[in-house]
């Protein structure tokens, strides 16, 4: 937008001339920042939706189909949301803009690692996260990215791009994962599931022990330790309740009873 014409300022002044250049540079940066914030917000919303979807696995008739749906949505996020981010960051120091999109990345890691846990009952690795975020070539032309390209630095010939996932973002995503695992565990306990709460409990203890070894090396992670502890405590209490409830009826009877109970 040409808003600099007809300025009442003395455009012959060298000061003003210099500042006009500064203005362009700052605007370029701010606009990129704004676009990244917007993309990050979209990624956050989509990731949250995936997490909500995954929670429906509790008591679902066809859990596998839910996992399939989630995977598909994750792929879509990668291709339609992260690819544009990667384009914005091409040839940039990624740390310059990291604050703009870190929230989205963390929420995405939360969703992806939740999917992994449900599918493979294990922790995802940073490499596995990173693997999905390599892209080749520019985006297929789409309406909403035309405009963007016009004021980004022109797309270079180099076709490969990726998004840097910092170890800290990875860990913070995992820290948030524990909150979702707690929810999963409580919901499962509510649905009378006797296994999930216990395995989640073990898993959370592993994560907590892992986090404990960092000490105060990473402040952002430390800040989440309190919430993590609370989540763990909730899961432990849930397991305790299941255990103590289970004590009132012989194990083999329980299975029968519950199978009829959850049917209704």
């Amino acid at each position: 937008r040409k808003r600099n014409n007809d300025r009442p300022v003395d455009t012959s002044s060298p000061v003003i001339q210099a500042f006009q250049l500064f203005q362009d540079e700052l605007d370029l940066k701010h606009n990129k920042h704004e676009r990244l914030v917007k993309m990050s917000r979209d990624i956050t919303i989509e990731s949250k939706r995936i997490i909500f979807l995954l929670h429906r696995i509790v008591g679902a008739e066809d859990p596998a189909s839910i996992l399939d749906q989630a995977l598909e949505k994750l792929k879509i996020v990668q291709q339609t949301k992260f690819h544009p981010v990667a384009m914005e960051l091409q040839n940039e120091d990624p740390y310059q803009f990291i604050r703009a999109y870190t929230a989205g990345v963390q929420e995405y890691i939360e969703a992806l690692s939740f999917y992994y846990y449900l599918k493979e009952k294990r922790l995802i690795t940073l490499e596995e996260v990173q693997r999905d975020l390599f892209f080749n070539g520019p985006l297929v032309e789409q309406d909403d990215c035309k405009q963007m390209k016009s004021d980004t630095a022109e797309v270079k010939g180099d076709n490969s791009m990726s998004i840097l996932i910092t170890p800290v973002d990875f860990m913070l995503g995992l820290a948030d994962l524990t909150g979702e695992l707690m929810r999963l565990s409580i919901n499962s306990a509510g649905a009378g599931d006797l296994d999930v709460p216990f395995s989640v409990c073990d898993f959370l203890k592993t994560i907590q022990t892992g986090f404990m070894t960092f000490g105060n090396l990473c402040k952002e992670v430390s800040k989440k330790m309190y919430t993590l502890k609370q989540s763990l405590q909730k899961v432990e209490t849930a397991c305790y309740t299941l255990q103590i409830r289970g004590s009132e009826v012989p194990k083999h009877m329980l299975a029968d009873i519950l199978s009829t109970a959850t049917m209704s």
Partner: protein
Amino acid sequence: MSNTTPATDIFAAFRSHLEAEQELREEIRVVVRELEQTAREIQTELQAVHQQNGIKNISVLCEKSYSMFDVVREQLTKLSQKIPLNQYYRFHDHWRFVIQRLSFLAAFLKFLQSEQLISREDTANLLGVKVDKNDGFQLDLEDYLMGLLTLSNELARLAVNSVTAGDCFLPVKIAKFVGELDSGFRLLNLKNDSLRKRFDGLKYDLKKVEEIVYDLTIRGLKPKDGATGDIN
């Protein structure tokens, strides 16, 4: 431009004084960070007691943790050598937190070994510091008490997990122990400070373990004298 006014001379002297102090603080911070690392390792070790099979291996865990206190003693000696006798409280805030945590760990270890309350002397010995302020680098009474309050919280959690692990004896013992701690702290006339606030936490811990014993009782799981208390 050096205009050597009297003021500048005076301040030049202060500068080296302040820099020396900053350096000492830096050194303290380094040792304290190492101590925290050791404390964390002991804690990680003892955490295993909360796991399904941890309760069965208590004695092994305890032995290992016990031997890790050797490092603590070394590091605290190193620290104490840096601090002039009369400046303990000048720098107290630097190690207050870690020493409270170590006190807690010592008390936790003692409970796991013998279901007894560790004394302040034993804690000081295990940590390699003095009890009496006049003897040198000491274990401040409030720090020791803070450790005990942390213990009550940990034990409440342990009561939950031991039931989950199928042990119905431990919760009853914990309830008794925390009840005694509660009676003990009630004797103290605590001011409105952090100790008082944490003591309020102890009341919750007590309530929690009492509820666990209730849960066991109402389901007939509370072990009678001589029973095994295994619910699996």
